[in-house]
């Protein structure tokens, strides 16, 4: 049974009508009152920028925060491959229902039906909105928008701008945000880091932020607080996330009463550039869109020494095409990652470390693009060189920046030799638990984008995070926030000398002083690395009871050592990236423990959560719907002490089945 503390507030009625009906019956706030209501938005990625701009357009007073020097630099900027939408421009049978179905199935039946359906419903509006802003999506010669395929689907519904889709979408949202800044409706605080939330009479009423330029603590009031602070993949140290991505905002909210949903659901992305040495600071993604045209293989022979191009066709094992003929190279990420690990563990890996597989473009470069271009240009019987040349031009247009990036990092030219890739931490499906309105368990506090747990279940399909972030920000929160703020119109702005603000600021200050005054010998970075190592080895792509139990003990020890032997150089009241980092690592050290506890409790395999004890004979994940068809929502009590609440998932519109991509 669902814990009584978790009311998802899903509207009644048939799935296809819930959102439409809800929208037209939800309480509204009249324009005059909106002007008196203040909203804090923490984060200016796709979720935060779109929310801040849209809410300001509606008349609310918005304050937006980001820790980078400009809102345009949020991690969303790095998203590469594309954004899904059920437009059916390709006339290949796509529909809202199919996008809904693919997303729920891709998530291995661990997401909330009503939320996912709403996401699929608004997906088409997102593309319209972005195009209207001037986002330059890829187009064909007739001037129409182009689509590509992503994993876990059999239709082409992904819109893109070369390998820079996140950049173009974020710049669109950023321009909408800056327009409101120019109009005075949004006040923007860049280089500001939220370090705690202020709760008054059980409701979120503001934040304490540190001005990262001056080091000063500052207090901000809001009638509601929106956390759009991104994912926490950097708990693994090495991930495809930007260096600054962190869990601090969400974690502080959690410690003040917001339940954390499915913390162990982590996405390991199959196609990333492998680790090259100890100095490595981050891992670089090679977009899933490359699996449209790249074929994944390893040599059939163990310990192969020949160069990739010297291995003849019949001695290559295209293991995804072999194991999953229906979806081939486009199986979902969790499946592709495990399959790569399986081949490497079995001794078929390539490269110096043997921890890599090939992603090869030659076949499609010649046969798909080369031939298509040749026939478009009316070249009859083109020779191989011509096909390669023509194919290269198209591949360059589709993925040019990714190929350049690969070459820059590895020193190898992927137009000539196959890429070497290996799975890496990429995205966190888990996050703050939210109801249908995107409100956390703390009234007035919301979570949007990657920071919340909703929509993706135990595995996210490619090109769906951008869709979710923009859906939350442009189309969901502007409506659902009315349900709360309509009852807040009589609440006057609370002055920030209120005792609650004073008390929380004092706690934040003391913590910074404690961090600074440990005066130990080890850097924040070195603790982060060690935590990442524990997480990757024991709570990564494959997990088991023994490893997770050990990890919990090791993390607790590491945390103790951190608070005894940390060294933070520089001062508190100045620009000090070491202090920023120390605070973030301290929070990761607590989150890591909860992730392992959650992974330990979930005695099944589903999506990205693979418990070695629970697998089918062929090595596929073995779900246990009878006992685990729920969202874990963890309530924080005190250090190392949480209570588990369960939101039982009900599927009324989708027939539950074992995921089958064969």
């Amino acid at each position, binding site marked *: 049974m669902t814990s009584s503390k978790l009311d998802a507030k899903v509207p009644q009625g048939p799935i296809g009508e819930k959102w439409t009906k809800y929208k037209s019956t939800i309480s509204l706030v009249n324009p005059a009152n909106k002007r008196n209501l203040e909203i804090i938005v923490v984060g200016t990625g796709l979720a935060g920028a779109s929310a801040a701009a*849209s809410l300001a*357009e509606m008349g609310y007073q918005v304050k937006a925060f980001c820790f*980078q*020097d*400009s809102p*345009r*630099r949020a*991690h969303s*900027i790095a998203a590469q491959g594309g954004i899904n939408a059920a437009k059916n421009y390709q006339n290949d049978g796509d529909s809202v229902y199919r996008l809904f179905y693919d997303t729920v199935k891709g998530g291995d039946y661990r997401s909330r039906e009503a939320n996912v359906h709403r996401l699929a419903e608004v997906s088409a*509006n997102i593309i*319209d*909105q972005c*195009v*209207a*802003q*001037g986002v*330059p999506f*890829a*187009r064909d*010669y007739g*001037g*129409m928008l182009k689509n590509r395929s992503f994993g876990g689907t059999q239709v082409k519904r992904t819109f893109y*701008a*070369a390998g*820079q889709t*996140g*950049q*173009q979408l974020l710049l669109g949202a*950023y*321009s*909408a945000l*800056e*327009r409101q*800044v*120019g109009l005075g409706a949004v006040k*923007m605080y860049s280089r500001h880091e939220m370090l705690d939330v202020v709760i008054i009479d059980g409701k979120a009423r503001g934040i304490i932020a540190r001005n990262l*330029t001056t080091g000063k603590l500052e207090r901000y009031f809001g009638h509601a607080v929106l956390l759009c602070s991104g994912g926490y993949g950097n708990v693994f140290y090495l991930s495809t996330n*930007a*260096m*600054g991505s962190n869990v601090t905002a969400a974690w502080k909210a959690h410690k003040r009463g917001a339940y954390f949903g499915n913390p162990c659901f982590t996405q390991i992305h199959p196609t990333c550039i492998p680790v*090259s*040495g100890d*100095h*490595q*600071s981050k891992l*670089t*993604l090679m977009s899933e869109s490359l699996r449209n045209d790249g074929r994944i293989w390893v040599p059939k022979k163990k310990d192969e020494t020949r160069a990739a191009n010297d291995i003849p066709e019949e001695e290559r094992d295209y293991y995804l095409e072999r194991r999953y003929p229906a979806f081939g190279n486009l199986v979902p990420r969790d499946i592709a990652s495990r399959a790569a690990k399986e081949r490497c563990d079995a001794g078929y890996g390539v490269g110096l470390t043997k921890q890599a597989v090939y992603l090869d473009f030659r076949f499609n470069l010649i046969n798909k693009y080369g031939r298509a271009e040749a026939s478009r240009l009316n070249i009859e019987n083109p020779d191989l060189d011509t096909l390669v040349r023509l194919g290269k031009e198209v591949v360059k247009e589709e993925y040019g920046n990714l190929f350049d*990036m690969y070459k*820059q*990092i590895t*020193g*190898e030219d992927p137009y000539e030799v196959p890429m070497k890739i290996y799975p890496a931490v990429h995205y966190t499906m888990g996050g703050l638990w939210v109801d249908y309105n995107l409100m956390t368990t703390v009234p007035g506090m919301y979570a949007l984008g990657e920071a919340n747990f909703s929509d993706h279940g135990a595995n996210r399909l490619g090109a769906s995070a951008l869709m979710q972030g923009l859906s939350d920000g*442009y189309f969901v929160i502007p409506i659902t926030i009315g349900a709360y703020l309509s009852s807040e119109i009589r609440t006057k702005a609370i002055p920030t000398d209120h005792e609650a603000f004073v008390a929380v600021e004092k706690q934040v200050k003391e913590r910074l002083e404690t961090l600074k005054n440990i005066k130990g010998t080890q*850097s924040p970075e*070195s603790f982060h690395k060690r935590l990442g190592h524990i997480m990757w080895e024991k709570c990564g792509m494959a997990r088991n009871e023994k490893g997770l139990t050990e990890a919990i003990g090791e993390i607790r020890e590491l945390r103790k050592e951190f608070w005894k032997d940390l060294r933070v*150089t*520089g001062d508190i009241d100045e*620009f000090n*990236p*070491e202090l920023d980092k120390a605070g973030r690592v301290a929070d990761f050290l607590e989150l890591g423990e909860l992730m392992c506890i959650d992974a330990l409790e979930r005695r099944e395999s589903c999506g990205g959560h693979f418990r070695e004890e629970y697998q089918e004979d062929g090595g596929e994940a073995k779900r246990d719907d009878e006992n685990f068809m729920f969202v874990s929502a963890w309530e924080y009590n005190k250090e190392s002490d949480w209570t588990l609440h369960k939101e039982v998932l009900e599927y009324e519109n989708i027939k539950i089945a074992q995921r089958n991509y064969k």
Partner: protein
Amino acid sequence: MSNENMTIHLKVWKQKNTGSKGHLEDYTVNNVSPDMSFLEMFDVLNEELIHENKEPIAFDHDCREGICGMCSMYINGRPHGPLEGVTTCQLHMRSFKDGDTIVVEPWRAAAFPVIKDLVVDRTAFDRIIASGGYVSINTGNAQDANNLPIGKERADLAFAAAACIGCGACVAACKNASAMLFVSAKVSQLALLPQGEPERQSRALSMVAQMDAEGFGSCTNTGACSAECPKEISLDNIARLNREFLGASLSKPE
């Protein structure tokens, strides 16, 4: 790929805060692998400095994938270093030799004051965008995306201009510290697209006015900006901005 490790000598700009005077300081980093990125070399150096209880060097960075525009080092007299079309974070140590001495400074421009060491304040760019770098359309007012066909060539040109990452290297490269390339990239993107048409003139005028108000210098067409731009934003955009600006000034109602 070579596995020989190198020794690199650095002269790095150290400056406590905006108000104080800075100076170049000498450092040596041993065991630099050619596969390291330039910023990873700084990570290694900073860890060593912390170990010795010295203050690490502050620098801006985030994505380390050449897309967020946050990294900003002036390396041996060139913004983002010796390679063309590459940001500091994507520059790798294989571009240098064992024993090299490398001078690293912040972006220098009156409109980009130094915050600390290699970190500068680029909020002037945000204010330029806020003055007109958008299409005025509220959420929820859009028509179906394919009702507005845009020819591929035009769309590709707009995309090429939109690729600007807002890093500020163009300003740092310019002897006048002009921001024309940055401004022209946004003006061009929107001038090329039908969505940008209604505000075409006012956009060019107000963005240029804001650029001047921020204290960026004037453009004398030296082309250094485009040559150093990590996204290879073309000088054609500046020519387009000049046309847009002139057109708008002429037709401006008195």
